[in-house]
């Protein structure tokens, strides 16, 4: 049976076998790469940054998957690793920006506007700009709910925040983005 057709539990078993470890790891990457990539890309905007963060995420997965306790879904755990890695990256960006006295938020906005396909009149580009106005954690909450349609219960395990707080955060985020689109 091809590893790509195996369930997460079966992939974990194959990963823990030294003979099939690399093959199982490749299957896991292929299974979740696009979801994780777009989750990161929407946060960091730039492809090269998203690629760097994604590769760091996968290296963490390689080292940490052996000890994964399976008390949550593999998908949830991967998202948690990716989100933490992304926040770490943005924190490092902030520190560099603080040194250079530039604004990280405007830096991301500039990256959006610098995209070769950018069209400020189109609603989907306005949406991306509106998203970048949000604080980092609120941005993550919005994207997980809006794009990935992740249930609050699962999101609370990814972000280790209560469901109530996540709902409130998302509702605020929607209002802010809507306001931005109306005003721009």
């Amino acid at each position, binding site marked *: 049976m091809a590893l790509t057709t195996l369930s997460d539990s079966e992939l974990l078993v194959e990963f823990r076998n030294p003979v099939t470890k690399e093959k199982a790891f490749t299957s896991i990457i292929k299974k979740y790469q696009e979801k994780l990539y777009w989750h990161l890309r929407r946060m960091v905007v730039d492809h090269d940054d998203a690629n760097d963060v994604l590769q760091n995420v996968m*290296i963490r997965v390689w080292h940490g998957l052996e000890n994964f306790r399976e008390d949550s879904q593999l998908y949830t755990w991967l998202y948690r690793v990716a989100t933490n890695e992304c926040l770490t990256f943005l924190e490092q960006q902030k520190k560099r920006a603080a040194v250079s006295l530039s604004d990280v938020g405007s830096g991301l906005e500039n990256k959006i506007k610098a995209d070769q396909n950018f069209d400020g009149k189109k609603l*989907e580009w306005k949406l991306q700009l509106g998203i970048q106005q949000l604080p980092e954690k609120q941005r993550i909450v919005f994207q997980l709910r809006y794009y990935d349609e992740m249930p609050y219960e699962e999101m609370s395990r990814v972000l280790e925040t209560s469901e109530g707080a996540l*709902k409130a955060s998302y509702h605020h985020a929607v209002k802010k983005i809507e306001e931005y689109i109306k005003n721009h």
Partner: protein
Amino acid sequence: MTYRNTILNELADLGSALANHDPQNIYALPAGYFECLADQILNRIKALEANDAKEELSYLSPILSNVSKKVPYSVPAGFFQNLSEDVLKKISEHEDFQTSEEEIETLSPLLSSLKNKNPYSAPAGYFEKLETGIEKKETKVISITNRRWYRLAVAAVVIGIVTISGLAIFRSKQVDPNKNPQAWIEKNVDKKVSKDKIDEFVKLAEDESTNVAFEKDDVKLAEIKELMKDVPEKEIEDFLNDAIALESNNDTDGSMNE
């Protein structure tokens, strides 16, 4: 107004400069805030109770719910096809990376050298035969359920036949002693009691009857004595003499007629 005047008077009494200031609201409200407030709160409640993200967004923001979710960013060609290889390459280039062979080599060169040496051997052609043997066994699928029911039915029929036959035989061998006493005796006595025992019983019965006869004679003699105790002895002698004479005459007559 009365209450406000009271406060202002109080401030004036205290000599406060605030008594002369006209309080004004410096905060501004968005236009139409209160007109929309009730609907917003109601929509928020519906969003909280929504079944999924789509329904939730339709209550929170009809505008966003109608916007295409396609992200406008572009991805370099072949990025996802090569990603797994790039990641593995990066991992292997890390100084701490080791394959399983390298790991055991580091931990124990001795065990590493013994890894491919298997001391056990299987008989020639074992695995080929095993596969076909399993297939053959697998084709012999017998339905247990039907067989079991069949056995139970056959057993019930056999028991019935034996029972009925036994009853028939038993009844046919029954002999009525009133209707056929000799047959009953032959069946119940002859077979159960030996001939010697029967002879012994007959002899005993004869002895008993003789003893009974002697006992009867003794009884008769006693009775005669009782009856004859009042009869003189001369008359008894005369009677006996007459009896003897009579018997003699009868014997002579008998011999003359022959």
